[in-house]
């Protein structure tokens, strides 16, 4: 009997709790910035652990952008932009933690990041339900824009375009028919190679071997040796400079001296050349256009001057672009209300990011396509000549009909398929 009365007491407490727990007031869908306060942008990337170099690299890109453009002026009132920098690591749980953090802070206008596709994957639904926007400088997994997130945008091309054009370039332009593919076990590397392999086979090429390494490995000689037996004409590697540099330097050990080495956008940059030294001569790479421009050169120069090292990762210009894109968006959609406060509607901001056109960023001419993709569709191909990457060719989607009729048709078909599955 007494037990039952105790239970009913606890039930009373709990039902009271339930009563109090009825949905609390809905999320703010507007950011109000009082005069003199900062506009706060969230920044999320991996700043610790083994992926920290890439995160730090992006952060520096954003910081330089902030140096260039520290304020936003709306209706004649100037507001300073501040960054809330958070380490979301390169993991889903890190992405989740930081996304929840930003999404529960009404002062955060929008988010630059996250860095890795796993973090983006985890973060996007959270921003979605909170009405926030994110611009990722480096999440390239094709699936991200296929999941109908309203929050997710990126200023980096998805793997689909680059992979198909790279296959085309290798087969049609270079005339290479036997390649070995290799990636670094990251979602980026794996995703891009997964696009290249079918595209290359479709063109009639042969994938003689396909394997992967683990980030942090340093001895690839046995792997290269097993490639050498199969006599590929090219080793196509998707990964980052540290591993790529070790790979190319270990080519002679396996007798692969005459085999072409090709990488993707993760590779194209001074970091790789610096790491690999003279061994990097002749290495090919692909990257979204225009990677080499005067602005970019100046930017990288300033970067090195400021931070006293060459960029440890490839995505600093993407970070720069993401920052500027937000500032443009805020200038476009923000307004000053009667109290003199700056009001930014999250929905308008999101709308803007899905519809803007013709923004000349460091990574190229950016335009939104309505799904969250913004980046330029041309891919440049580069080769290391005399210690720097020189542009040797440019391919773009559907831009080849005139040159090679037959192949182009094939390629077009590929592209259509890819369009469906990719993004």
């Amino acid at each position: 009997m007494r037990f039952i009365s105790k239970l009913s007491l606890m039930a009373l407490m709990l039902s009271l709790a339930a009563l109090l727990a009825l949905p609390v007031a809905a999320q703010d869908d507007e950011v109000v910035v009082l005069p003199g306060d900062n506009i706060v942008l969230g920044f999320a990337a991996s700043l610790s652990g083994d992926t920290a170099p890439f995160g730090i690299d992006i952060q520096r890109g954003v910081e330089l952008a902030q140096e260039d453009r520290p304020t936003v002026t709306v209706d004649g009132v100037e507001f300073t932009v501040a960054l809330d920098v958070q380490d979301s690591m390169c993991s889903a749980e890190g992405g989740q933690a930081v996304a929840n953090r930003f999404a529960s802070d009404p002062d955060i206008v929008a988010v630059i990041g996250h860095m890795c596709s796993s973090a983006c994957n985890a973060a996007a639904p959270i921003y979605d339900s909170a009405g926030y926007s994110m611009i990722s400088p480096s999440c390239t997994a094709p699936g991200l824009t296929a999941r109908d997130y309203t929050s997710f945008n990126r200023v980096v091309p998805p793997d689909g375009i680059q992979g198909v054009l790279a296959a085309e370039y290798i087969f049609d332009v270079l005339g290479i028919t036997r390649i070995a593919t290799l990636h670094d076990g990251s979602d980026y590397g794996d995703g891009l190679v997964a696009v290249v392999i079918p595209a290359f086979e479709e063109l009639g090429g042969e994938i003689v071997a396909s394997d992967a390494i683990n980030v942090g490995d340093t001895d690839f000689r046995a792997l290269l040796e097993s490639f050498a037996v199969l006599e590929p004409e090219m080793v196509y590697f998707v990964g980052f400079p540290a591993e790529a540099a070790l790979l190319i330097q270990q080519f002679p050990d396996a007798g692969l001296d005459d085999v072409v080495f090709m990488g993707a956008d993760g590779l194209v940059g001074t970091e790789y050349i610096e790491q690999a030294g003279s061994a990097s001569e002749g290495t090919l790479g692909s990257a979204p256009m225009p990677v080499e421009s005067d602005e970019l050169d100046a930017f990288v120069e300033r970067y090195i001057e400021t931070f006293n090292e060459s960029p440890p990762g490839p995505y600093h210009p993407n970070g720069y672009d993401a920052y500027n894109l937000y500032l443009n968006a805020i200038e476009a959609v923000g307004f000053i209300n009667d109290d003199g406060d700056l009001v930014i509607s999250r929905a308008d901001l999101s709308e803007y990011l899905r519809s803007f056109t013709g923004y000349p960023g460091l990574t190229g001419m950016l335009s939104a396509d309505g799904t969250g993709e913004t980046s330029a569709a041309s891919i440049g191909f580069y080769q290391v000549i005399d210690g720097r990457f020189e542009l040797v060719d440019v391919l773009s989607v559907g831009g080849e009909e005139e040159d090679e009729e037959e192949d182009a048709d094939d390629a077009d078909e590929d592209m259509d398929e890819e369009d469906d599955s990719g993004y």
Partner: protein
Amino acid sequence: MSKGSRAVRFRGGGLGLFIQSPLHIVGTAFLLFLVYVAVSNIAAGDYTLRQFLQNLIFGLAQGSIYSLIALGYTLVYGILFMINFAHGEVFTAGAYSGFFTMYTFAQSGFLQENTLIAILLTFLSGTIASVMVAVALERVAYRPLRNAPRLVPLITAIGASITLQQLYLRLFGASARRFPDINLYILPDVFTDLECRVVDGVEQCLGMDIIGGIYPVEIFGIALRLRPISFIVFFGALFIMWALWMFIQKTKTGRAMRAVAEDKSTSALMGINVDRVIVTTFILGGALAGAGAVLFVIIPGNGQVNPLMGFFPGIKAFTAAVIGGIGNVPGAMFGGLFLGVAESVGPSLLGISNQLRDVISFGLLVLVLIFRPTGFFGEVLSEKKV
């Protein structure tokens, strides 16, 4: 009595060693399966002797580095019975110090003029840095816990490992640094067909480049590509290990170390300064790791120094030490070489992807421990400690 009663040991050899329990039968079956896969791979012609020899040489060079690191683990374990999880970071310290030294030499031109001296000085600086970190570790993180429960120093070691990694990251930057290329030519009179160039109309031969060079060699009709440095690293490591062995066996300090490993309190009663012996152990372990680090980055194609470079080799080396029988010096040497070769030869021999390379290392570890629960050479110590 308590000690003796624990002994569960293998007697005899041959098949008796294998067929002891159902587990051994499973292990044996798995081993046979591996052999079958390897043999069928070879029979199918997917695998050539040339590949094997080439990988063997890669593996020995890599393995000798593992051995050097593993010795550090084994020495510390032998005396303190703790896993010095931060040993990988001691290795990193050596690599950074070596890098800065060598980089300075390369910039100033000293490297090009006095290559050998530059290399020796690099070794010295790498070793000193590693020793300093190792000794600091002992002093700060381990000594206060001499009498704590066994798992506690393991946690401080993990903490120290994280701290050091992050410290390197903040001090030296996140990106990898490239170790300068080194060329050291020897015997221009002998190797007149190698590395010759015409200067002012006169042909000058530099001889064999024993550090940066790679040369095709034909042995018994098998064309191999060999780097002299691989052999230098291998024999250099062997020499260092031999020196360590002699140190432990022959010197007074070495005897004190063995005594402390046997029984700390008795040794203290016998007038041995236990703290000093433990510090000596850390010094030795650090020196080996430092030397290993410089040997490692000096190999062309390995020359990358980054803040996290020590962690995984550290784990591998620890695995190697266990395979060999932790606490046992020859065991660590053997385990390192064994692991290096297995990693290098394994994937292509078994026809599995390179990504699963670490599965081979750890799978081997399990197999070895199924048959020999205290590692290959681990009998004597295991009975006492475990």
